[in-house]
Structures are given as C-alpha cells and as structure tokens.
C-alpha cells in the first residue's frame, strides 16, 4: 500500500475521531442541540470504504453518519455548521446530526430510519446501471438493520438485478443495547446473505488497510459486471449508542479487548514502523486537525441561523 494512501487514510480517520471528540465536548457544554450517535472506534470502516470512491460514486448512510460523510469528503465546516444548526450547514440546518451529507460529494444526506436507506441505495445503483454510469454505490448499515423488512426487499432486488452496489455492514455487535447474536437465528451475520445469493465477505473493521483492500477488490469485480456484494466490517463503537448511553449493557472486558484494536493507534504504529511518520509528525497532524476543527467551530458559531422563510421553500421542488 503506498504512502500517500496510508497518510490520507490516517488523516481522515483521525479527523473523524477528533471531530467526534470535539462534538462530544461541545454537546456536553450544551452548545449542540439534539442528540448524537458518535462514530468513535469505527473510523477504519468509513475511511477504508470511501477512500476507494470518487465524488460520482455515492454512499448512503445511517443515524450514525458523521464518519461516513467526512470520509466521503463533506467539508468539516459544513458538517460542524449543520450540527450547530446553522444555515451554512451541509443541510442548511434543516437536517441535523442524523441527516448529514452532501450530494455534490456523493454523500446522500443520511437516513435515520434503520434499514430505510437500503432500498434507496438499490434504487441509486439501478439508476447508475440504467444510465450506464460507471460508478458504484456503497450502502452503510449497522448490524441491527439486517432484521428490517427494508433490508430484505432492498437486498433481494439488488441481487436479482445484479447491481453495482456494496452493502457495507458495520457489525459493532450491538444495535443500541441489543446484541446482534441474540437477534438472528444464524451463527454468522453473513449467513443471512445466503438467502439472497449475494456474495458476502467479512473483514477486520479495525484495520483500515484491510477494509480498503477488500472494497478495492469488490469494486474491481463490479467493474467486470459482478455485484452486488455484502461486506461485514467487524468493529466496535468506543462510546455510547447515543448521547445519554453509558454502555452498562456491555462488559468492561469486552470494551478493553476492542479498544486495544483502536484503528487509529494501529495505523499510527504502522506509519511509525514503516518510517512514514515519526511521533513528532503525528503530533503535528493531530494539531493541524484540531486547528481545522477549531476553525470549523468558529465558522459554525459565526454562521447565521437558517431562515424560517425557507421552511416552506424546501417542502416541494
């Protein structure tokens, strides 16, 4: 894997992590309204996937979308402004945390109904195929989403029509407080896909290089007319499900086990080991990103509130 790629993925993952940490502290200070579903711990998934995509490839996202959007290139300023509910936000302050995205970057504003994005992703992929666009669609979903009817219908249709679509399932073991293993009758999550004839794969979702490589291969297959595919990324969220969650339903030992796999520490170790970066330059990157984030916060704070007048305007096209 070349340096540039590793550096880029490192920076993006770190940006996501620091973005979420920043948000969390802003939220605790009461500066951010609503709720937050933070992405800490899962950064390798979003980045490993999106690093393979260009602006004309589309992603669909979930209630936990910050990481996906940032990885896909949505600007930090417009993300931060959205979370501050400002007019300069990527959704003009109309969407909020659960709906961030920027279609110009191929990041469809996220959908917070679990599973609701899946048939829509199928539709986008169908339309790419119909229009003979050479792009792919990646649809993020959580492990919890695989029990929704929308998953079933969307995946089945993608399968029978052979669409250029990758379902990226971030299996962080839990849907809210519920362990996925108790909610499916099969041993492995990917067994679910046997019912659709969709080829499925699993990957260590804490290792960005593995996720990257896997998606890279799947996209190649898609370019050769195969697809859709399903990729399970085994991962873990380092934080609560949403802002009020203290994770009491998880074992401390489990948390420790997974935190040891921190994808950012992992890539930083690799970068150091491969002498691409030293700790000093890593610190510098941290500082740069923190600065960027502060700038984004400044931008957000100084941005105007959205206009009530526009409410009516945005109902119909």
């Amino acid at each position, binding site marked *: 894997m070349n340096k540039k790629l590793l550096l880029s993925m490192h920076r993006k993952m770190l940006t996501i992590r620091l973005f979420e940490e920043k948000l969390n502290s802003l939220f605790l200070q009461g500066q951010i309204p609503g709720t937050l579903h933070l992405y800490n711990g899962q950064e390798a998934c979003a980045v490993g996937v999106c690093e393979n995509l260009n602006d004309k490839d589309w992603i669909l996202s979930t209630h936990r979308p910050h990481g996906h959007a940032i990885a896909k290139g949505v600007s930090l300023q417009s993300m931060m402004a959205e979370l501050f509910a400002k007019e300069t936000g990527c*959704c003009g302050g109309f969407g909020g945390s659960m709906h961030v995205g920027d279609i110009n970057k191929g990041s*469809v*504003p996220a959908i917070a109904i679990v599973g*609701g994005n899946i048939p829509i992703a199928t*539709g986008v992929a*169908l339309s790419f195929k119909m*229009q003979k666009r050479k792009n792919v669609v990646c649809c993020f979903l959580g492990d919890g989403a695989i029990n929704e009817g929308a998953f079933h219908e969307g995946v089945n249709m993608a399968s029978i029509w052979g669409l250029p679509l990758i379902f990226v399932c971030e299996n962080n073991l839990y849907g809210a407080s519920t362990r996925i293993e108790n909610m499916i009758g099969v041993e492995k999550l990917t067994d679910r896909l046997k019912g659709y004839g969709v080829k499925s794969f699993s990957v260590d979702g804490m290792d960005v290089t593995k996720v990257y490589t896997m998606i890279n291969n799947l996209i190649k297959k898609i370019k050769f007319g195969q697809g859709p595919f399903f990729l399970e990324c085994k991962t873990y969220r380092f934080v609560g499900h949403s802002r009020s969650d203290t994770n009491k339903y998880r074992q401390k030992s489990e948390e420790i086990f997974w935190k040891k796999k921190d994808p950012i520490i992992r890539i930083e170790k690799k970068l150091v080991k491969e002498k691409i970066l030293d700790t000093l330059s890593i610190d510098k990157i941290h500082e740069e990103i923190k600065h960027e984030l502060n700038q984004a916060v400044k931008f957000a704070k100084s941005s105007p509130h959205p206009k009530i007048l526009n409410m009516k305007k945005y109902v*119909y096209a």
Partner: protein
Amino acid sequence: MSMRNNKNSTQKMTIAESLRLTIQQEMERDKKVFCIGEDIGIKGGFGGAFTVTLGLSEQFGHERILDTPISETGIAGVAIGAALSGMRPIADVQYSDFLFCAMDQLVNQAAKLRFMSGGKLKVPMVMRAPGGATTRGSQHSQSLESYFLHVPGLKVVCPSTAYDAKGLLTAAIRDDSPVLFFEHKLLYGSKGNRAEKGSISPVGEVPLYDYTIPFGKAKIRKKGKDVTILGKLRSVYTALEASKILDQHTISCEVIDPRTIVPFDSKLLFNSVKKTGRLVIVDECTKTGGWAGEISALVQENIFKYLKKPVVRVTAPDTPVPFAPKLENFFIPQAKDVVKEVLKLF
C-alpha cells in the same frame, strides 16, 4: 403515432387508455422515465393490476418496464433512489391499500428528503395507486387520499376524466416533487376483462399531443348558484348525478372537481361558496380525519361569514370497507345521500 404531432387531433378513450398513452409518450420523450411495479410488463401478463401498462414492455423493453418482486417497500425505495440520481420513475402498487406496506419510504423518505437536505435533493417520482371499493373486502377497497393529504412534501392528484388523467399524469411525471397519483378503479373504463362491475365510463376526447394540467387548478364540472358540491375522483360523478336530481327540485348546484388535493385550489372553491353560501363535500374516504373535514375547516376559517348553512360532509362512515355489496353500497356515498343532505339546507 404520427397523429400525436397533429396539434388538433384527439381520440375518444377511457382513463386506462389515456394513462397508457401518457406513459408511452413520456417514455418516448424522456429516456429518464421508466415504470416499476408488480406484474406490469410480463409477456402475456396483466399490464399492471388494471391494464395501464399493457403492451408497453414490448415497445420499451423490460429494463424500462421493470417487473419487481412483491416488495412494496422495495418498489418505493428503489423509485426514490432512482429519482435522487437522475431518473423519473413511475412506480405503482396494484391496489392503493398496499401503500401502507411502503409507508415509511413514502412518508419518512420521499416526502422529507428534500426538506432534510436543506432543499438540495429532489425526488421526482410518481406513485400510482388505484383506490375505491369494488366488493373485494376491507384490504382491497380503501380510499387513501386523506392519509397522504397530511404528508407535507407529497403532492396528491385525483383525476376524474380521461382528459385530466393525461394532463395531470404528464404534469406529475415532469414535476420535481414526489406525486401520489390516485386512480379510481371504477373510472378506468367499462371495457376489457379488467373492467369492474359498476364502472362509470368517463370516456372522453383526449388530445394526442402533449399537454399538462397544472396542479392546484380545480374545474367547475357544472355551473350553479344555490349550493356548491365538491367531490373528487368518482364522487365527481356522484355529485353530478345528485345535481341532476336536485335540478328537479329547482336547486341549482355548482359541482367542483379539485383535480389535485395537494395543492388545492381554495380560491375557486371559495369563490363558488361565496356565491352559493352552501357547501356539501362528497367523498369516499371515511369521515373522521378525512379530506372533507379539512375542506370544511378551511372554508369556515376563511369565508365564515359567507356561509348560510354549516358545511356538510357526505362521506363513508367510520368503518373498514365491508365486503357485502349491500353494505358496500351503504358505505360509499350515493347520489341519493347527497340529495338528502342538500335538501336539508333549503
């Protein structure tokens, strides 16, 4: 097909034929338009539950007349995704009752994506849905317009003539917002093996050329001065039938067909009611929480002082749709019910 370029040429046709012609012409005009639904394009099949897409797959192929599994959430979701990314899908459910299976996609997704994105997305899709009671029992008979009336972000269209069907469907396909397009099973036409018992056949002259009917423009179906009767879809004909009977009582009815209920042409209605001072709304939706109540509220909110009498609702009662024809007949408002209520106003 050459006739189509003849700006003057028209042809007598049913609503089913008019809808079919519209889809055909729009698909010829715009490569982005395609149809998606169950049993719509299978060779030797039905052309949709009510023949509207019959024969189109032969002209356009199975990619553009796309048959799906029995998956209404999937159909709606796929239509949304396709619409987001540059296509103009015409989706359909075989019976409007099945819209409930796709409700999240329609209400939480299609209707809100533009708004939630701060006006950046658009979802130019049409969802066609045949409604109305034809002795098939509670799950194949409902009129669902009132549910969708209450969904900001969706437009709701209710054609009652072959002419309107074409103009409105053309407009719907070209609209950049999601449109719920309700068709009434008893208005498709009384020909063919899918014609329903009890069909009214609003066969009419339909121009073969391109035209649209703008949304939010109601139509006066009959001029009158003593009372305004508002009805949509089949109720337009119920109202007209009632008005004929009322003529004999020397009560002159003005019959209004809104054509689209979202947006709604309140101006035309208000002008009529200002003149007549009386309003009766006929509707096959059930009463409580239905369209008729909305109009009643709207009218008295805006032109209260013109009302000589309270606004009257003649609607289906608050029950599911019964199977037995005798009960169904009672369920669906009839001309005689309208007459009875109108007479009470004088």
